[in-house]
């Protein structure tokens, strides 16, 4: 005799294992006194260049390190190491995002209490990283002036999970007729109240403001 299947409510977050791990990481970062910033963007936004400058500037007064995620190659870690900061590459293979387990694994053997700032550079992708908490304190979404002002409207989820939007390559703004007001409007439409900063890692414009924002977080 067969009985009808019974429906049992279980109510679990599908990514709960990642969330539990991310919470543990956040507690660990807090205890160690390290401020953790993640960077998300599409490929080619100038994320690595921005991070290289940031590491160089912050390193003058603080202890800084970075984990950098890519599908393949260790090129970015080599580039970032030029700043003199401690850098490790996470090679994800075919996976399009970092998750908390990858971060935890990559931190193995690092003395977090010897750091003031830790940066997590995600894989270049504006979709998948939105779903994965990495235990970071601040999530920066980065977009360059060459990508078009409607990026926030096209990728609302990632903008919605971020804390600050950094507009890069501002030195190219006039060449590409970049509309600063339009981007501000579009960011505010998907994430009301989010702060936006415009920088050029090449000329240094706006970098002081970004450094100040990071430093304000640890004081």
């Amino acid at each position, binding site marked *: 005799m067969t009985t009808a299947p019974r429906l049992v409510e279980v109510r679990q*977050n599908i990514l709960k294992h990642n969330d539990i791990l991310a919470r543990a990481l956040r507690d660990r970062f807090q205890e160690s006194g390290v401020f953790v910033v993640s960077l998300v963007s599409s490929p080619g936004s100038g994320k690595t260049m921005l991070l290289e400058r940031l590491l160089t500037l912050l390193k003058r007064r603080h202890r800084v390190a970075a984990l950098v995620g890519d599908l393949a190659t260790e090129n970015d870690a080599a580039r970032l190491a030029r700043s003199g900061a401690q850098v490790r590459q996470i090679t994800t293979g075919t996976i399009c995002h970092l998750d908390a387990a990858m971060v935890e694994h990559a931190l193995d053997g690092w003395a977090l209490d010897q750091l003031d700032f830790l940066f997590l550079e995600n894989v270049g992708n504006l979709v998948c990283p939105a*779903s994965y908490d990495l235990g970071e304190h601040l999530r920066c979404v980065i977009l360059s002036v060459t990508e078009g002002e409607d990026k926030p409207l096209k990728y609302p989820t990632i903008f*919605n999970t971020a804390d600050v939007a950094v507009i890069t390559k501002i030195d190219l703004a006039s060449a590409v007729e970049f509309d600063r007001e339009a981007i501000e409007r579009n960011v505010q439409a998907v994430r009301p109240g989010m702060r936006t900063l415009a920088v050029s890692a090449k000329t240094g414009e706006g970098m002081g403001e970004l450094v100040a924002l990071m430093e304000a977080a640890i004081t």
Partner: protein
Amino acid sequence: MHELSVAVSLVEIATEEGGRLGGRVCAVHVKIGQLAGVAKEALAFSFDIASQDTPIAGSRLVIEDTDGRALELVALEIES
């Protein structure tokens, strides 16, 4: 395209919960938010692959649309 990663997590959790409840899991009910960044068709396809050779292989995935960023395992159908 991280539906396969999401499907793998879903299969893990559904297998855990199914094991706790006892019996065979014949359907998995989930809620997916519009802002979750997950495509339903891709998730359904990935679920069939991710559940192969697991205790919940052959179970049906039932997806309900919802608002926000929800990615939730809501219920299991269990045959005893």
